[in-house]
């Protein structure tokens, strides 16, 4: 088994809600991430899937400490980032980079491509002006753009091209890990495919580790070695992509997979339609968070929170059925 480059232990993030009555502290909070543990192995792609509000984006930001956790550990190469000071965290960001969802909003409109890609080098004082420029041209080449693009502004590029620029910037410091938060969901299908291909190429070339966050199960399936499924701030199931797609165990994973639209007009799909909406993360249901919508709910699901238990070689599931 490969070495775990990132290990997350019982990670929690609760965002407090302001009390409407003045001068009274509120004890309510949005439990965006509520006790999550997993590890990411060097060189693999871990997918985190879930629907809006499940906490997957907060998860991404917790790993590189853009959001400081309420509780729990984030071990990067054995060191706990959650207890580090601001300066050490800034240094750690050299090795953990991020690519964001919206290619339009993630590039400062007032900076040239050159300035944008060189920025991480400047921040961490790598090289001099000349060597940085050289590196910028190199990186543009790597992501399939041209060096003459360096002096242009972001608005002169299409969404796909901008996402390439984002990727180039994330690569600038030779990171170990790149966290991709929905990197292709704002793109058209044909462009999506281009960016996905690029990400896969780069992973091989630079032996990168990816944490890939997405709501699109097809994209995740294609990109990832292992997949974690999140629901209301918790991981309900985690396993290799074969295990998750061939043999989903958690009823939520099953429903999620069954909801993916057909792949051909001939396919007959058995749908598991979930009842109602996702409950509020302020007052998650007691016991298993999914029990109100679960077609297989039992009495114990209402009261006892299921643990994430080993089932099969690498597959773990948080459900009383197993």
């Amino acid at each position, binding site marked *: 088994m490969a070495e775990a480059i990132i290990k997350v232990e019982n990670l929690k993030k609760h965002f407090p809600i302001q009390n409407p009555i003045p001068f009274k502290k509120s004890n309510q909070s949005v439990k965006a991430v509520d006790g999550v543990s997993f590890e990411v192995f060097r060189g693999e792609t871990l997918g985190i899937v879930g629907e809006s509000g499940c906490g997957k984006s907060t998860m991404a930001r917790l790993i590189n400490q853009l959001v400081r956790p309420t509780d729990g550990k984030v071990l990067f190469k054995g060191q706990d980032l959650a207890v580090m000071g601001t300066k050490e965290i800034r240094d750690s960001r050299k090795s953990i980079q991020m690519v964001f969802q919206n290619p339009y909003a993630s590039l400062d409109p007032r900076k040239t491509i050159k300035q944008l890609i060189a920025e991480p080098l400047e921040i961490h004082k790598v090289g001099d002006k000349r060597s940085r420029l050289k590196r910028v041209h190199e990186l543009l080449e790597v992501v399939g753009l041209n060096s003459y693009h360096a002096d242009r502004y972001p608005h002169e590029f299409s969404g796909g091209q901008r996402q390439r620029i*984002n990727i180039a910037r994330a690569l600038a410091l030779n990171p170990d890990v790149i966290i991709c938060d929905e990197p292709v969901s704002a793109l058209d299908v044909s462009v999506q495919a281009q960016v996905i291909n690029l990400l896969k190429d780069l992973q091989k070339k630079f032996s990168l580790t990816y944490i890939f966050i997405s709501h699109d199960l097809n994209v995740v399936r294609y990109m990832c070695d292992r997949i974690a499924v999140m629901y209301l701030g918790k991981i309900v199931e985690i396993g290799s992509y074969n295990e998750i797609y061939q043999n989903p165990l958690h009823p939520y994973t099953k429903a999620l997979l069954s909801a993916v639209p057909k792949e051909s007009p001939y396919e007959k799909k058995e749908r598991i339609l979930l009842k109602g909406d996702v409950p509020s993360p302020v007052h998650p249901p007691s016991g298993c968070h999914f029990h109100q919508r679960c077609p297989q709910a039992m009495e114990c699901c209402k009261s006892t929170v299921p643990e994430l238990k080993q089932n099969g070689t690498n597959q773990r599931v948080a459900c009383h059925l197993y």
Partner: protein
Amino acid sequence: MASVQSSIVQIEPEKKKVKKEAGLMKKLMRNRLAAIGLTITALMTLIAIFAPLIATHSPNQMDVAHSLAVPGTDGHLLGTDNYGRDLFSRLVYGARISLMVGIAAVIFGAFFGTLLGLVSGYFGGRLDAIIMRTMDGLFAFPFILLAITLMTVLGQGLVNVIIAIGIANIPGFARIVRGQVLSVKEEEFIEVTKSLGATNGRIILQHILPNCMAPIIVYGTMSVAGAIISEAALSFLGLGVQPPTASWGSILKDGKDYLVLSPHMATFSGLAILLTVLGINLFGDGLRDALDPKMKV
């Protein structure tokens, strides 16, 4: 899940922006009203700079024998005032005072207001609360009332007028900048910069401030118009620059007293103010449409 944005967006937006950035000046000039505004503003600025060359008389030279002359008499293009001073020349020199006070006061207000707005918006928390409550407090005074009270504290004089109007301008800038910072702060590219390991100072100076410039410039332009009116209002109330210095407001104040005998004093001085302010506002509107169309001023 804000993943969807782009799918029904119509064909143009990307390339449209290219044009916007490339030809701000061109775009401004294509907007006919903005072009007129810019022309008026430029003209007034030239008049202010070259006042000694343009004025036909010395602005303070009295000639009581020819006081309150009708426009056009004895080479007095716009007539004379109650001391027989040439009104045209006084108005020309008045442009200097008006524009200088307008611009200097706004620079003063913009500098401190921006500083406070940046700090307040970016760091938030208790500092924000203290700064913004103070700004709210200042904002609770009607602008002109604040300027009047400050003038009584500072005493009359050109520099004090600038400071008083400048201070009265601070809360407006602080609010605009803070609001802008709050929205820019939420932009993904700020998060990206943080994720790269940037320090707060770098984020503020390199990313937030440049992205706040558009509203600052637009609001600044329009504030110059407001400041010119405020200066005139203070002088009109006798709280502005000291006589005999010619200022549009003080000419108007004198004109009010001779309204029946000699309405041209009040008429022309007011028209000068209106024309200048209108020019700046036209230009400001054009700037807003070009730089920051969503802004409400």
